[in-house]
C-alpha cells in the first residue's frame, strides 16, 4: 500500500459523518455570498441591461435616462474598464460587448441604491441595435459549418476497414439536449475596496483563483491586489467554474469606481438567460459487431453546441471523446469532435464534463442495436466489457476491469434481477396500457483533469498554541462535502479528535494558484495537500515528543489526541505536546502541496494516460410507462458504486444518489428550449424560469433506491485509498433512459429498436411507444449498413496545444 493511501486503525476518515455545516444549514445560519449584503453598509446593487437579440451590433447606448431614475448611481459601460474588457480566459468574452452574441447578453450594468432602483434604471437605458443573422441549433451550425476551436480525433486501428469486415454494421444519429445547472443559489458576488485600493470580492465560485485573475485583468491590477473568498456555494455542479468571473469583475469594477461595496446577484431569470449550461451534442455514428455481438469498430463524429464563446468547450469535448468507450472494448475506433458556435449562452462545465454525453452515445448505440442483433441489451453490454490489460482508445491501460464486473454481478444479485425480469414480463403480458422494463448500465469514468497541469493543489494548516487546528485548502465547498472530508483527513493525519479541527472559508490570499474545484478531484487533490501539510507538522512534533518521551521520533504516534510511542508507557496529551513544541520554537503551521503523479496527455494527438484511475459503478433501473400519456415512473433503482475506501460514507452515498437523480433529470425531464423561429423572439430561451424548466421533485424519487458502496475497492493512487465521487454517479442514470427505451419497445413486436430522444419527456416517450406499437419507423432511425461517413475534422481547425502542455514540453526541451 502506498503511503498516500494507507489508513491507520480507527481513522476519522471512513466514518459516516454529517456535513460539517449541517447544523448551520438546517437552522438557516449558514451564510452564502448574497446573505452578506444585508450585513454590510452602503451597498450598491447591480442590474444588467440585457439585449433582446440573438446577434446584433450595438450601435448606440444612452445611459443618461437611467441616471434620471431615482436611486440610480452609475451605469457601467465599456469606457469604464481600466484593464481588459473581457470576462473569460480566452479573450473571446467581452464583458461590455459591442457585438451581442446571444439573446439576453448583458450590454451594460446599472448600479442603484436598491435592487429596485437599479432594475428601473436598466429599463431606462436606451440601446440601439443593428440585428444580424443568427445560428441557433446544432443542425443550423453544422449546415453552416459554424465551428470554433480545435477538432480533435481519438483514433486507434483502422475503423473503416474493420467496419467492412464486420458481420453486422449499423449507422445512425444521436442527439441529446443540454442541461441547466439550476444550482439553488444563483450566481452572486459582493465586492468592496480596501483602504489601499485592493479589492476584496466575495464570490460564489468554484474557481476562486481564476475569479481573482479575471477581476485583476479587468481592473488592470495584479493578482496580489485582488482577494477572492468563497464562503460556500448553494450548489455549483460545474456551473460556477467559469461563469462567476465576469459577474465578480462587474461588481469589483463598480466598487472601484464608486468606492462603495457592490452586490451583484443574478436573479433566476438572469442566471438562466445569461450563464452557460451543459452542452447539447449531436453524433453521427456507424458501428460494427461480430455475430456474437462483440463490438468491432466504431466511427463517430460528435458535435457539441458550444454557444457564443469557447469557455470550457474544448476540454469538455476532449472528455466526451474519452468516454465514448465507457466500459467497453472497441478494437478499432475513430472519434472526431467539433464545437459548434451558436448564438446562445456559452455552454460550460456541468457534472461529468462531456463524459455523460460521450457515454450516452455508446449506450444509445448498444440500446438501439441490441434488438437488431437479437441479443438482450444487458447481455450485449456485458459481453463487451473491458478486461485488464486492454487499453482505451486514447491509450490508457485498463487495470480494474473486475470492478465493473463485480458491481454488475452484485447489482444482479442484490436487485434480484432474474426474478424481477420474470415479474416484468408477467406484468407486461397482463397490462394493456402500461409496460415495465429493467435496464442495467455500467459507468467507467476517468478521474483527473484531462489537462495535466491542473492536477495540483495546496493547503495551509495551522496548529494554534492550544492545540486547535485550522485548515485552509484550495478547494471550495458547494455541498459535495469536500470540507467534511478535509476535516476527516486532517484529523486522521494528525491523530486528533475531529472537534479540534476547523475549516476556514476558501480564499486566494491563504492558498494561491489553485485549480477549480471540479473534475471530481477536490478530495483527491486537496486531501493530498492537507495530508502533506499535516505530516510536515506531525514530523516536527514527533521530534519534540521523541525528546520528551526519550524515544526516537519515528516511534511517536498520535492516536485520538494522545501521544504514544513504542518503547514507553509514558504518554502526552496533544495539547501538552503542542504547548511544549511552541516553547521549543517549533513551526506549528505548514503549507501542503500535492500533485498527481504518473499522468501524461498529449492533446494534439489525444493520446496518453490522462487519468489517475477510473471510478466505476453499475445501476439497474426499473421503470413503468403509461401508454395513454407517455408519463413514466421509476419504480426501483439498485446501484453498486466504486468510491474506493470511502473517506466519508454518508457524503459519498449522498453524492451517488444526488448525481443519479440529477442525471435522471437531464435524461427524462429537463427540457431546455430556445425560440428557434424567425420571429422577433429568435434566440430567446423559452424555458427561462423555474415554472418552465422543471427539475426532479421529491415526487420523482424512485420508490426504492438502494445504494451500496463496492467492497474491496482500495485505491492505491489516492488519499487514504479513496476515490472521487462527484461526477461519476450522474451517468448511472443512463439506466433510466435505457429502461424507458426497453419499456417502449415492449409495446411492439420483439426485436423492435426504439429511437428515444433525449430528454425522454412524457411526450417523447409517448411518440416512441406509439411508433413501437404501430411498427412505424421515423426518420433518423438506426439502419443497417455503413451509411454516410461521419464528418472528418477540418484540416484548417486550430491545433489544440494547451498552454500547460507547451510549458511542460519547453521544460523537457530545455
Amino acid at each position, binding site marked *: 500500500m502506498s503511503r498516500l493511501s494507507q489508513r491507520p486503525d480507527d481513522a476519522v476518515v471512513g466514518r459516516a459523518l454529517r*456535513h460539517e455545516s449541517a447544523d448551520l444549514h*438546517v*437552522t438557516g445560519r449558514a451564510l452564502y455570498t448574497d446573505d452578506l449584503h444585508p450585513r454590510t453598509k452602503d451597498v450598491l446593487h447591480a442590474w444588467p441591461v440585457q439585449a433582446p437579440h440573438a446577434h446584433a451590433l450595438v450601435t448606440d447606448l444612452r445611459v443618461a435616462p437611467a441616471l434620471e431614475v431615482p436611486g440610480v448611481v452609475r451605469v457601467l459601460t465599456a469606457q469604464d474598464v481600466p484593464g481588459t474588457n473581457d470576462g473569460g480566459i480566452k479573450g473571446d468574452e467581452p464583458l461590455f460587448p459591442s457585438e451581442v452574441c446571444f439573446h439576453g447578453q448583458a450590454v451594460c450594468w446599472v448600479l442603484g441604491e436598491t435592487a429596485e432602483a437599479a432594475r428601473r434604471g436598466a429599463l431606462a437605458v436606451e440601446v440601439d441595435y443593428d440585428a444580424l443573422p443568427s445560428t441557433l441549433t446544432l443542425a443550423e451550425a453544422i449546415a453552416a459549418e459554424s465551428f470554433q476551436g480545435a477538432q480533435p480525433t481519438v483514433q486507434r486501428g483502422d475503423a473503416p476497414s474493420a467496419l467492412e469486415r464486420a458481420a453486422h454494421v449499423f449507422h445512425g444519429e444521436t442527439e441529446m439536449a443540454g442541461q441547466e445547472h439550476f444550482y439553488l443559489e444563483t450566481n452572486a458576488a459582493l465586492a468592496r475596496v480596501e483602504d489601499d485600493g485592493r479589492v476584496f470580492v466575495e464570490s460564489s465560485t468554484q474557481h476562486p483563483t481564476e475569479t481573482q485573475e479575471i477581476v485583476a485583468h479587468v481592473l488592470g491590477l495584479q493578482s496580489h491586489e485582488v482577494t477572492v473568498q468563497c464562503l*460556500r456555494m448553494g*450548489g*455549483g455542479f460545474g456551473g460556477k467554474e467559469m461563469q462567476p468571473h465576469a459577474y465578480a469583475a462587474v461588481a469589483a469594477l463598480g466598487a472601484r469606481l464608486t468606492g462603495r461595496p457592490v452586490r451583484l446577484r443574478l436573479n*433566476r431569470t438572469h442566471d438562466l438567460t445569461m450563464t452557460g449550461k451543459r452542452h447539447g451534442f449531436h453524433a453521427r455514428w456507424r458501428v460494427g459487431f461480430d455475430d456474437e455481438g462483440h463490438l468491432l469498430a466504431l466511427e463517430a463524429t460528435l458535435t457539441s453546441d458550444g454557444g457564443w464563446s469557447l469557455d470550457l468547450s474544448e476540454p469538455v469535448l476532449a472528455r466526451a471523446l474519452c468516454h465514448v468507450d465507457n466500459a467497453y472494448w472497441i478494437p478499432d475506433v475513430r472519434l472526431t469532435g467539433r464545437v459548434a458556435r451558436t448564438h446562445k449562452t456559452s455552454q460550460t462545465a456541468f457534472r461529468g464534463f462531456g463524459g455523460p454525453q460521450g457515454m450516452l452515445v455508446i449506450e444509445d448505440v448498444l440500446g438501439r442495436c441490441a434488438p437488431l442483433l437479437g441479443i438482450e441489451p444487458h447481455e450485449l453490454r456485458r459481453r463487451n466489457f473491458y478486461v485488464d490489460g486492454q487499453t482505451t482508445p486514447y491509450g490508457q491501460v485498463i487495470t480494474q476491469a473486475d470492478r465493473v464486473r463485480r458491481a454488475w454481478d452484485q447489482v444482479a444479485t442484490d436487485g434480484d434481477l432474474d426474478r424481477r425480469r420474470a415479474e416484468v414480463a408477467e406484468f407486461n403480458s397482463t397490462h394493456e396500457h402500461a409496460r415495465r422494463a429493467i435496464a442495467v448500465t455500467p459507468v467507467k469514468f476517468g478521474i483527473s483533469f484531462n489537462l495535466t497541469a491542473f492536477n495540483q493543489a495546496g493547503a495551509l494548516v495551522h496548529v494554534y498554541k492550544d492545540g486547535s487546528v485550522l485548515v485552509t485548502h484550495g478547494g471550495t465547498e458547494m455541498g459535495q462535502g469536500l470540507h467534511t472530508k478535509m476535516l476527516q483527513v486532517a484529523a486522521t493525519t494528525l491523530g486528533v479528535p475531529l472537534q479540534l479541527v476547523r475549516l476556514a472559508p476558501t480564499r486566494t490570499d491563504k492558498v494561491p494558484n489553485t485549480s477549480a474545484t471540479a473534475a471530481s478531484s477536490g478530495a483527491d487533490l486537496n486531501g493530498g495537500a492537507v495530508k502533506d501539510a499535516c505530516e510536515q507538522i506531525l514530523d516536527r512534533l514527533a521530534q519534540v515528543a521523541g525528546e520528551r518521551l526519550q524515544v526516537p521520533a519515528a516511534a511517536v504516534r498520535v492516536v485520538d489526541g494522545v501521544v504514544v510511542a513504542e518503547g514507553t508507557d509514558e504518554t502526552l496529551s496533544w495539547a501538552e505536546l503542542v504547548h511544549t513544541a511552541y516553547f521549543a520554537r517549533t513551526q506549528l503551521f505548514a503549507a501542503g502541496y500535492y500533485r498527481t503523479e504518473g499522468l501524461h496527455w498529449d492533446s494534439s494527438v489525444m493520446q496518453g494516460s490522462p487519468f489517475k484511475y477510473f471510478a466505476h459503478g453499475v445501476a439497474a433501473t426499473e421503470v413503468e410507462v403509461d401508454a395513454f400519456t407517455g408519463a413514466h415512473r421509476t419504480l426501483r433503482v439498485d446501484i453498486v458504486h466504486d468510491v474506493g475506501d470511502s473517506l466519508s460514507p454518508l457524503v459519498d452515498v449522498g453524492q451517488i444518489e444526488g448525481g443519479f437523480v440529477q442525471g435522471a433529470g437531464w435524461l427524462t*425531464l429537463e427540457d431546455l428550449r430556445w425560440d428557434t423561429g424567425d420571429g422577433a423572439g429568435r434566440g430567446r430561451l423559452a424555458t427561462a424560469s423555474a*415554472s418552465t424548466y422543471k427539475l426532479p421533485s*421529491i415526487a420523482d424519487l424512485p420508490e426504492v433506491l438502494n445504494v451500496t458502496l463496492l467492497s474491496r475497492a482500495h485505491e492505491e493512487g489516492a488519499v487514504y485509498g479513496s476515490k472521487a465521487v462527484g461526477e461519476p454517479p450522474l451517468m448511472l442514470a443512463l439506466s433510466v433512459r435505457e429502461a424507458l427505451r426497453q419499456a417502449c419497445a415492449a409495446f411492439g413486436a420483439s426485436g423492435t429498436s426504439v429511437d428515444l430522444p433525449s430528454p425522454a419527456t412524457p411526450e417523447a416517450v409517448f411518440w416512441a411507444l406509439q411508433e413501437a406499437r404501430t411498427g412505424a419507423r421515423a426518420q433518423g432511425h438506426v439502419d443497417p449498413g455503413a451509411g454516410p461517413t461521419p464528418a472528418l475534422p477540418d484540416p484548417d481547425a486550430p491545433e489544440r496545444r494547451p498552454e500547460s502542455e507547451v510549458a511542460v514540453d519547453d521544460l523537457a526541451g530545455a
Partner: protein
Amino acid sequence: MTTTAPTEAGAAFLTVNGTPVPLGDTTTPHTTTLDWLRDRGLTGSKEGCAEGECGACAVLVARPSGDGGTSTEWVAVNSCLVPVGALDGQEVVTAEGLGTPEQLHPVQRELADRGGSQCGYCTPGFVCAMAAEFYRAGRGERAGHAEEGTGEHAGPCGPNGFELHAVSGNLCRCTGYRPIRDAAYALGEPDESDPLAQRRRARPTPARHTRLLGDGAELVRPVDLAEALVLLAERPDALLLAGSTDVGVEVNLRGARPRLLVAVDRLSELRDLEVGDDEVRIGAGLTLTEVERGLAGRVPLLAQLFPQFASPLIRNGATLGGNLGTASPIGDAAPVLLALDAALVLASSEGERVVDLADYFTGYRESVRRPGELIREVRIPLPLAGTTAFHKVAKRRVDDISSVALAHALDVVDGTVTRARIGLGGVAPTPVRALRTESALVDRPWTRETVEEVAGVLAAEGTPLTDHRASAAYRSAMLGQSLLRLYAEQPRASKEQP
C-alpha cells in the same frame, strides 16, 4: 372573521419568531415577505426562483385552523410571493426561529443527521415545509398506514402519517431527496412543551385592517366586503389580492407594480363552505387547502384536482377566486368546474349576479367580470355525475403547469351515456367545454367501440398550439387518449354520487 381597528400608517408589523417587528419606512406594498425578512438579517430563507416553484423561501404562518376559529395551525407558504403588507399583524416563523445549532428542532435534527442537506441552500425551506407537516393536526392518526396513499394522486405517506407531498413544492438539486424522505418519515409527534405545538391550541390572530403606502402604491386590507366593493368601485386601478400566487409572480418576474392592492383573502364573506341539498357553495377566498379539507372528498372531481394543482405551499395560498380571476386558459380549476356545471357569484357595490362558468370566459385572459366586481363564491349544482375523472398532462408528475387538462363528468345509466360534460384547459384561448364530444357521447352505449370512435372527435376539439411545454400534435393526442383512459379505468358506470 372579525377584524380589528385599522392600523395607523407605519404601525404595521409582523411577529417574526415570536417578536413583533414593525414593517418599517422602506417597506412598500410590493415588498415581498422574503425580501423583508432578508433585509432584516433573517437570511435563512432563500430566494431560489421568486416564483413559487422552489420553496427555498418557505416560512411558517399561523392561520386559523378549520374548526371555526378557536385554534390555530402552522401553514407553510412561499414568502417570495406574498407582499409583507398582506401579513400585517400575523405571526411568521422561519428556520432561524425553529431551532439553533445548540438546540435543533426535531425536523432540523433529522435532516442534519441523515444527510438531508448538502449545499444547504434549499434546507431552511425544507425545514419549514416539513415543520408544517410535523405540526399538522391529525397527522399521527394515519400513522402505521405506511406508503398507502389516500388517493390516486395523493402520494406516499410515512409510517408516522407524514404526507411526502407536503414537501413536493421544495426543490433540492443536491441530495436526490432520499435522505429528506427518510428524515420526514422518522419524525415523531411534537413534544408537549413545544411552543409551536402549544400555539396551535390558542386562537388565531385575526386579520388586521391594513393600509400600507409606499413607492406611489397602496395595499389595503378592508374590514369587510362592503368596504372592499366600495374601493373597487372607486378605484379602477385596484387589483384584488388573495393568495398572491399569481400576483406575486407578476410582480417578481414581470415587473408589475400594481397601484392599489386590495386584499380579500380573509374576508369572511368569501370564506364560507357549505354542502347543501342541491348545491355546493365554496367561498372564492378560501385557500385550496381549506377547500380540500372542508369538502373532504364530497366532490370527487375536485378531490382529484387538488393534489395535482401546484404544490401544498401554493395551495396554502391559492384561491379559486384567484384562479378564475385571471381567466387563464391553462388554469386547472376551470376545466373541472366546467365539467361540474359550476356558476360564479359576482359581487359589486351594486349587488350580486350569478354567471354560469360556461358563459364566463370571453377571450384570452378575458371574462365577463366587470371592473368593480369580484368573485365571491363558486356554486356547484347537485347531484354530481357518476363517472368523473380529472386528467392533467404535464412534463413533471407533480407541481407542473398543464400541457392539457381535462375533466370528465358523465352519467351512464343502464350502460348508456345520458349526460356528458367535458371541460378542457390548454387547448384554446380560454378554458372550453368539449361540446362536440359531449353530444357525440350522449345516448351512445358506454363501450369500447363508442370510446374509440369518439376519441377522434375529442382529439379534434380546440385549437392547441405548440410551445415549450408540448407540441400541438401531442396536445391533441392527449385529448383523445384521455377518453380511452377514462373508459379503461371506469368501464362500468360508477355509483352516482350523493
